[in-house]
Structure formats: structure tokens, C-alpha cells
């Protein structure tokens, strides 16, 4: 049976097509779906696309930043107002992948991919999805926990609050091949400082669990403290708590658990 490609003018029509067909998969930039099709994934029988302009919208003028699901990493890198997201966008693939890969697709990228989502998780982004019964906003963490069950919904956009300063948001991807290898570990940290103390620490890891996860133990070690050597050491030693990394060709679970604290310490202490 041939694969059917359906293109819709509006996101809601595309969402309807997705929710009514178990074999339907939404095609963003194609870096995941086309690979699956080329490698013989027969679970995809319908490819759904949408030409809706709203999906490629960027609103970066205010304190709340909105990215349409179809926004590519290349476009993020071209946007001066999105400087805080340049590091995660640049860490994804080569230029060809960044030209095609989208913010929405990245939410579904399995380990060792999905680096941009790690940044969004640390920024506590909100994911706007459209299902068969209308659209709704979901906190990104909740979205990721139920990711496997999101097949029938279409992501419309993600939004997050702009970090107060460039110091407040940090990102680090550990890869074997630089700059575009798959992730051994990806770390993003959002550390708002209030009165010299961290208030609302958010640490997110990629490749440390089946999906991107928050490092709650490390967050607790940071919360309400100043970012000094002792605090960083405490966060680093708590980094592995609650994680469940897996073995893959890039690194073993053991190796990931061993190095996650080292890289978190380097990220928090500003080391290259």
C-alpha cells in the first residue's frame, strides 16, 4: 500500500486528519519522519502536512516568546531576539538538518536527539496542541510524560518566558562528534537570581531517561542558595538522582551517570 500524503491549509484540519487515522504522522521538517519511511517503518501510512502560516510564526518581541511548531532551527539562529536559544539551536545536526528540523518535531525526537526540547524543558515552556476536540495548552513536562500518547494531536506552538539575563540560562551538549553528533548528555539550566539567591532553579537533562527529564534533586540543591562552589558541588553530586539513562552506541548508562555531575558542575561554574 502506497503512503498517502495529505496537505491541509489549516492546522485544525491537519489535526483532524491526525486524530482520525492511527497510521497518520505529521511531517514537519521531515528529519524524523522521512528517515523512518526510508528505513521501512510501515507503521506510517499517511503523511499529514499543513501549510498554515500560524505554524511558522515567531513572536519574540515581548517577555513571553512564542515559536510556531514549524519554525526551523535555522530561523531561530537568524533571529537576534532569540539569542538565548541560539546555543541549543546550533547544537542540532548540520546546516541541512537545521534548515529543515523544526521546534515541534524536536519535541518528538527520541534519544539521543531532542536537544532543543531540553532547553524548553528548563525554561518551563508551554506546548499548545490541537487534538480532535480543540486546542489546549500543556506544560512541557506533562507533554513529554505523555509523549507516546500524543500521536493523534498536532503541536501548534511552544512558548516560554525569556530568561532575565544571559547568565540565567545555560546550555551544554556533550557529544562525541562536535558540533553535530548525537547527544551523550544534554543539559540546560535556568537559574533566575533574586537578591543574590537562586529562586526557581530548573535543570533539564537529555539522554538521561527515556524522555527529557527535570533534575529535581539538583534543583533542590540549588534553590534558595547563592551559586557558589559549595552549592555547585551539592548540585553536581545530586545530578544523577532520579535519572534512568540507557546504553547506546554513544555511551553506556554507567558512563552517563558517572559524567552527568561533572558536566553539570562545569556548566554551573561557567567552565568551557
Amino acid at each position, binding site marked *: 500500500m502506497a503512503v498517502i500524503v495529505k496537505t491541509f491549509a489549516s492546522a485544525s484540519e491537519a489535526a483532524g486528519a491526525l486524530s482520525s487515522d492511527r497510521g497518520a504522522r505529521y511531517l514537519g521538517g521531515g528529519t524524523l519522519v522521512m528517515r523512518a519511511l526510508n*528505513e*521501512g517503518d510501515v507503521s506510517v501510512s499517511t503523511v499529514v502536512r499543513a501549510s498554515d502560516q500560524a505554524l511558522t510564526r515567531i513572536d519574540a518581541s515581548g517577555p513571553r516568546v512564542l515559536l510556531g511548531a514549524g519554525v526551523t532551527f535555522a530561523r531561530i539562529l537568524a533571529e537576534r531576539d532569540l539569542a538565548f536559544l541560539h546555543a541549543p539551536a546550533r547544537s542540532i545536526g548540520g546546516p541541512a538538518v537545521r534548515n529543515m528540523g523544526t521546534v515541534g518535531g524536536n519535541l518528538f525526537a527520541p534519544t539521543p536527539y531532542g536537544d532543543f526540547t531540553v532547553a524548553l524543558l528548563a525554561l518551563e515552556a508551554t506546548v499548545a496542541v490541537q487534538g480532535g476536540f480543540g486546542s489546549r495548552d500543556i506544560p512541557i513536562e506533562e507533554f513529554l510524560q505523555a509523549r507516546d500518547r500524543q500521536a493523534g494531536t498536532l503541536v501548534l506552538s511552544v512558548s516560554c518566558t525569556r530568561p532575565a539575563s544571559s547568565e540565567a540560562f545555560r546550555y551544554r551538549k556533550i557529544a562525541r562528534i562536535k558540533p553535530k553528533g548525537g547527544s551523550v548528555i544534554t543539559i540546560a539550566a535556568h537559574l533566575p537570581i533574586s537578591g543574590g539567591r537562586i529562586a526557581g532553579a530548573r535543570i533539564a537533562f537529555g539522554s538521561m531517561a527515556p524522555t527529557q527529564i527535570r533534575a529535581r534533586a539538583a534543583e533542590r540543591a540549588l534553590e534558595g542558595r547563592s551559586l557558589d562552589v559549595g552549592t555547585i558541588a551539592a548540585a553536581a553530586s545530586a545530578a544523577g538522582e532520579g535519572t534512568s539513562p540507557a546504553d547506546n552506541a554513544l555511551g553506556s548508562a554507567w558512563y552517563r551517570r558517572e559524567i552527568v555531575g561533572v558536566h553539570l558542575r562545569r556548566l554551573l561554574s561557567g567552565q568551557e
Partner: protein
Amino acid sequence: MLELRKDIFADERDDNLKEIGKGTQRQDMLGHVTGTSSYFNDHQLQGMLHLKVVRSTEAHARLRLIDTTEAERSAGVRRIIRGSDVPRNLNTLLSLINFGKDDEPSLAVDKVRYKGEPIVAIVADSEREAFEAIAKVKVDYEPLPAVFDVEDALKPGAPVVNETYPRNTFTYHETYDHQKLRFGDADAALATADHVLEQRYQMSPIEHAPTETNGAIAAPDTNGRYVVYTSTQALFFSVDTCAKILDVPSNTFHFIGGTVGGGFGGKVDTLTEPLAILGAMLTGRPVRYVFGREEEMQYGPPRGAERIYVKDGVMRDGRVVARKIRAYFDSGAYTRLSSYAAVKCAAHLPGPYTIPNVYGDVYCVFTNRTPATAMRGFGVTAMDFAIECQMDKLANLVGMDPMEFRILNAYRDGDMKAHRREAKNTALIECVQVAAEKAKWPIRDEFRRASSRKDGGGSRAVIPPTPTDSHARPPAPAQQRTSYDRLPPTVTREPPRDPPPPAPPPSPRPAAPSHGATRFSSVFGTRRR
């Protein structure tokens, strides 16, 4: 600009040649940079079908049942090919030069020996339909104990990977389980050396990662012939391999190759052509069989992994007096070209150095891993890595500069090599001197004045007394190692439906003219010239 040291290589080149040393445009460059080069996959033939294979999900398992009934009914399926459809479903690449035994089926019959081994081929109207049919093939595996480590594979009681070689080692000259090099008495020299350094070096398999994956398109031609567009990097080798597997004269095929989208040794194994042609024979239609990227990376043959133990004896003055090497080449589940790699490796020992006592044992070992193949200097590169790491460590051990240490130990014209051939046209000393000069690495005058042409031969040309190995050949491990192998060892089990003809394949080589002298070849053994 290429510089040729005429003072060293006086006889090496005719100065009247007009090409070498000059910038010359490659003949295929214009096509490549303008995107007009034609690759095998650029041929879209009318009515072309697509072939995909069902691959083993197990590293080592008996095939209890292969059920294709549902797949046969799947939309667009034109033909399902099983091992029993392959005319000669057992081959080894170097059988074309009478080296090695046929050990690898095109499609697995009663057993799979590595994860990803092809079991059934499906020819369908589209790739998609072939993939859908693959999902409907049911294979009932009876998992067998697997072995993934070269030394574990040699232990008594290890699972037998490939029944053609029940001891998990390639058989050289129908007798030996490894390549052996003996020159002088390495054990005695190690016992009296000032320092002994033993190290273990473990290499990894390396994927060739060609931009163009392995593939072929075969189409029926007039007069019962087949035209084959292929990515092969060894066109005539592939023609003969296909002729053997499909049991037809090689002039049945018109192979068209030429532009290879990255080879490096990864496109000599002729993995896609036989099944593509067989598909065309069975359907009367053009058939295309191309590896996906994952197939290429996961199941395309890599450079084999080697494990190398080097034990060196060195004197305080820096002379290496003994080098003892054990190396294990991981061939994966089948031979392909690793047997030859081990021969090359043994021939390379002990590297470009004059060492009076050399001992080498090089094994080609079968494991339940993806079969390894040729890649850029295979057999030598890994050993060189080990030897040169070792040279740096030895230099450090005796407190010598590593460049000077190499010059001191380098072979020179007239020296006796461990293979009992005189060293000629040696130039390691000069290479090290130039490297030191270019790197502005200071070396002392006496080493700057050293020459490959001076101070060689003499006592260095002597073949030292060499004790023969006292111990007998290790006995063959018991045949009954797994439940699956509890059959009389004389029974040929692979493949049961289609046993290979007992006679060796007709050699494409004409009988060598006899010149009356015997010559030893490490591949063919002792032969009359």
C-alpha cells in the same frame, strides 16, 4: 608540491614521466562537482521491482521455521526468495583464488550466525510493499549461545559460530589455525632483556560509511543475459562471485560500474548483486536491491576489530632485542577477507625494524558479530598502531628520544627480515630524519648522520637459530559444544537442502607455468613456479 628525495629514491622513478608530481585534474571530477556523474541508482528501468531482505534479529540461533504465507499474499509481492532458491547458497569471496572454504550462504538456511544476517528476500513492486511484506514474515528462532569476544571464541566449549570452521578459526593450508612467524628465540631474548614491556591493544570495528550505500540493479537483457548496474568497487570480482553463486557462466552478465560513491573496501563483498540478479531471473523484471542507511551502518561489513598483545624486550642502550606478538582478527561470523588480513599482518611483523628475535601468532577468529571485510590497509594498520604505540612506550622506558629510538632500531639495506628475506630499498631512517626536520624536532648528530644504506647487513643479515615449537598443535576442541551441534561432526548441515558441490569451484586462474623452482606463498602454500 610533492618532493621526491632523489638522493634516497634514485632508482624509484623515471624522470621522464609527465604526470606524477603535477596537479592533474581527476578524470571524474567535472562530473562529480556538476552533479552529472551517473551512479548505479540513477538507472530507473521500466517495470523495475524492489528487493529487500528479512534480517535476523538474533546473533546466533537455529531457524526452526520461516513462515512466509502471509507475506506471499501481501500486496505488490512478486516473489519471495529463500536460501533453497539460490543455486549455490554457500560461498566465500576468496574461493575465486582457491583460498578458504565456502562458508557463507546468500540467505541463511537452518541457522543465523550474526544479528542482521539475511534470511529471506522479498521482491515487490515498491520498496514500501517489500517492507510491508517483511513485517509479515514470521521467523521462529531457537536462540543459541553466542560468542562476541575473539579470545572467548577460542576457549574450549565456546559456541561453534560457523560449522565450516568448527574451531572458530580460519584454517590455513588445510592444517593450521593461525599464521605463525618464528625468527630467533624470542623467549630466551626476553629472559635476558633489561626491560620487558607487554601491552594489550584493542581495536574497534570501523564502518566505511560511504555516501552511496551498497546496491545493485539487475535487468534481463537479450540472449538470456543480464545487465547489472552496481556500486561494486571490484567489478570483475563481483562478476565471478555472482557467476559462482548463481551457477552460470560469467559471460551471462554485463556488469556496469565505474562510479562508486565511496568504497574504501566496503564494496567488495558483493552482497547485493547476487540477490538482485536472482530476483531478475525469477521474475523476468529489472530488480533493484539497495541497502538503507541503517543496513549499511549496522550490517554492512566493517573493518574488523583486532586484539593485539605485544611483548617487547629492550636493552638499556635502546636496542629492541625481542618482539613477541599475539593478534586476533575478529572476522565476525564469516570469512570475507579477514583470512587474508591475518596473512598480511603476519607478513608485516615486526614492523620496519631489525629485531633479532621475533615471534608472531596471528589468528583469524569467528564470532557472532557482523562479518568484517577489507578497509584501507586492513591487516596492517591496526598492527602498526600497536607497534608504534609500543615504540613510543619503549623509548620512554629507556629514556630515549622516540625519533632517535626509531632510527636506532630501523631496518637497513642488507638486514635480514623476520621472513628471511633481505631488506632492500629501506628508508625508514630517512623518513624519520625528514619528519624530525619538518617538525623542527631536534635529533642528535649521530642520528642525523644515520643512513639506511650504511651499517646494514653483516651480523644483521644472519638468520638466528630458531627453535621449533615444542608443544603439539592444540587439539581440536570437542565438536559437541551446543545443543545444536550434537550431531555427528561428519554430517554437512549447511545448507541441508542445497549442499555445495564437493568439487572446488573452477579456478579462474590458468595453471601457473612451471619454472621448476618451488616458491612459498603465504596464501597458497608451497607451489612450484
